[in-house]
């Protein structure tokens, strides 16, 4: 049925344009919502027109069943994902983004699997692309799943390491590639050995994704999530080549490029290379030998309230601890009270604060904090010197002045320069170290006071005290 392509291809072109316009609209909060609606419209058109392809296939023994399966898969997959996306708490958003991204990778792997079973090299000249797309898709699927488990707290957020890890991982990747090549080299598919090569190929691809993500710790998740986003995009784009599907090529390649850029930005925000994030099991070793002068000075909510109420300018630096404690609502409440008292309140947002890119911005927006008050590290850093109180809520490594000290694992990482403020209050659960396993010099500074406890709890008490003033 040739005629359907006169309908499908122009629609794909339109969809691709809408995708690009949508991403462009996302560069501004005022137009961003419009953008996702455009992209959604483009996707609806593209998917709806694609139904024409299976619908006009010559009748076969399986075609009817395939349509039933398709309807079930779309209905079940769509309904579960929609329900979960609507119900999930904003603080759990990183794992949702990770899991949906992983599913895209799994779908790309599934497509490659079907295409390879339908016909391999040399009958299907695109089959090497299926191998590449299938491998990247499987890695993204298994890797995102591990990221999801770590973020959901169903497995430890600490790096999982064992001796010779990098070598083992490399062997697994090599075996996956080897079985993929074996499968291509075997003619006569679907009989005996070649199919099991295909299974081995996917098993090792999935294993690699799993093993690759195990040694990556919780605080490196912003890099990992955007990396897998890029990988899924690439897998989809490569599958698009194999299927001659232009909508998939453009969508996949654009996402691959966007995700790669975001991954690089995240790694840069930690002054570490991508390979350092992926292969060094950062945070599994504790720093030793660094001695810090002074002691941590605890304070209480009443003192903090007084300090805040009589300040002219306050900057809040939130971190993952705010998300864990679900304290964003209290932060907003405190901000409102302080502003009513004439205190200027701003927020300093570190690019890798939290567990995904932009995590803190999303939580504060959820609480109703206007995005005019949220500032990038470069914008806010010059302001700390003229700030009366800097309040650190559940952040550690992103405010650690050890980043200025030669030889520290954090050395060179851009940090929020909270220590320059006249007073610093740190809201923290206990005396533990940050994710990087490094003592935080900040906590020992003379101008720094510690308010121990759950951030939501502590802020509640500070708010009570502020109301009494």
């Amino acid at each position, binding site marked *: 049925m040739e005629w359907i392509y006169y309908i499908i291809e122009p629609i794909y072109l339109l969809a691709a344009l809408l995708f*690009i316009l949508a991403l462009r609209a*996302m560069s501004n909060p005022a137009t961003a919502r419009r953008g996702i609606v455009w992209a959604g419209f483009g996707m609806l058109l593209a998917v709806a027109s*694609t139904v024409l392809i299976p619908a006009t296939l010559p009748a076969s023994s399986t075609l009817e069943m395939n349509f039933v399966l398709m309807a079930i*898969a779309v209905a079940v*997959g769509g309904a579960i994902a929609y329900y979960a996306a609507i119900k999930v708490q904003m603080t759990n958003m990183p794992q949702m*983004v990770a899991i949906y991204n992983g599913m895209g990778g799994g779908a790309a792997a599934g497509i490659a699997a079907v295409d390879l079973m339908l016909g391999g090299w040399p009958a299907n000249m695109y089959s090497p692309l299926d191998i590449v797309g299938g491998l990247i898709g499987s890695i993204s699927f298994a890797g995102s799943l591990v990221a999801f488990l770590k973020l959901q707290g169903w497995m430890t957020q600490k790096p999982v390491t064992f001796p010779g890890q990098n070598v083992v991982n490399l062997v697994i990747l090599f075996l996956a590639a080897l079985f993929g090549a074996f499968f291509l080299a075997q003619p006569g598919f679907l009989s005996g050995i070649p199919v099991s090569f295909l299974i081995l190929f996917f098993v090792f691809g999935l294993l690699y994704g799993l093993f690759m993500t195990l040694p990556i710790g919780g605080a490196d998740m912003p890099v990992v999530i955007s990396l897998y986003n890029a990988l*899924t995009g690439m897998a989809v784009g490569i599958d698009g080549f194999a299927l001659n*599907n232009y909508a998939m090529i453009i969508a996949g390649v654009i996402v691959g490029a966007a995700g790669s850029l975001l991954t690089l930005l995240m790694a840069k925000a930690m002054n570490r290379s991508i390979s350092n994030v992926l292969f060094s099991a950062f945070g599994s070793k504790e720093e030793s030998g660094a001695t810090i002068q002074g002691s941590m000075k605890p304070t209480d909510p009443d003192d903090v309230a007084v300090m805040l109420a009589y300040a002219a300018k306050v900057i809040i630096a939130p971190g993952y601890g705010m998300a864990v404690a679900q304290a964003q609502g209290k932060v907003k409440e405190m901000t409102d009270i302080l502003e009513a008292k004439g205190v200027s309140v701003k927020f300093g947002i570190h690019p890798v604060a939290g567990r995904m890119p932009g995590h803190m911005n999303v939580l504060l927006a959820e609480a109703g904090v206007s995005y005019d008050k949220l500032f990038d590290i470069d914008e806010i850093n010059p302001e700390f010197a003229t700030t009366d109180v800097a309040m650190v809520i559940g952040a550690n490594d992103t405010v650690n002045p050890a980043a200025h000290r030669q030889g520290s694992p954090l050395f060179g990482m851009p940090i929020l320069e909270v220590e320059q403020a006249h007073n610093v209050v740190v809201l923290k659960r206990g005396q533990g170290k940050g994710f990087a396993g490094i003592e935080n010099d900040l906590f020992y500074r003379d101008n720094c006071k510690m308010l121990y406890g759950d951030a939501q709890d502590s802020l509640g008490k500070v708010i009570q005290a502020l109301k009494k003033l």
Partner: protein
Amino acid sequence: MILDIPQWVLLYLPLIYIAVLAAFTGYEVISRVPTLLHTPLMSGSNFIHGAVLAGAMVMLGLAQNLPEQIAGFVAVLLAAANVTGGYAVTDRILEMFDRSKQPQKKKEA
């Protein structure tokens, strides 16, 4: 055909051009996105690679035996979840950044 253009130029080159230009487009468009919107950017691009659903449907349609049907079914299932979940999550996040909706949000909270 008057010119003697090799087959690969006709078949593969346009695809490579598309990929290269799309990569540049993606890079250029994204480099303007502020830190503030990094999450919706990521989940939005997450939604866009949900176009994989189109390919998954074609492949399931082509499936001719049980292993192919299983792989195709899994592909469609995962792709459908990717695309609906990606959209719903992005829309929820962007709703919070939507200025016209913000005052209402405050009352709910």
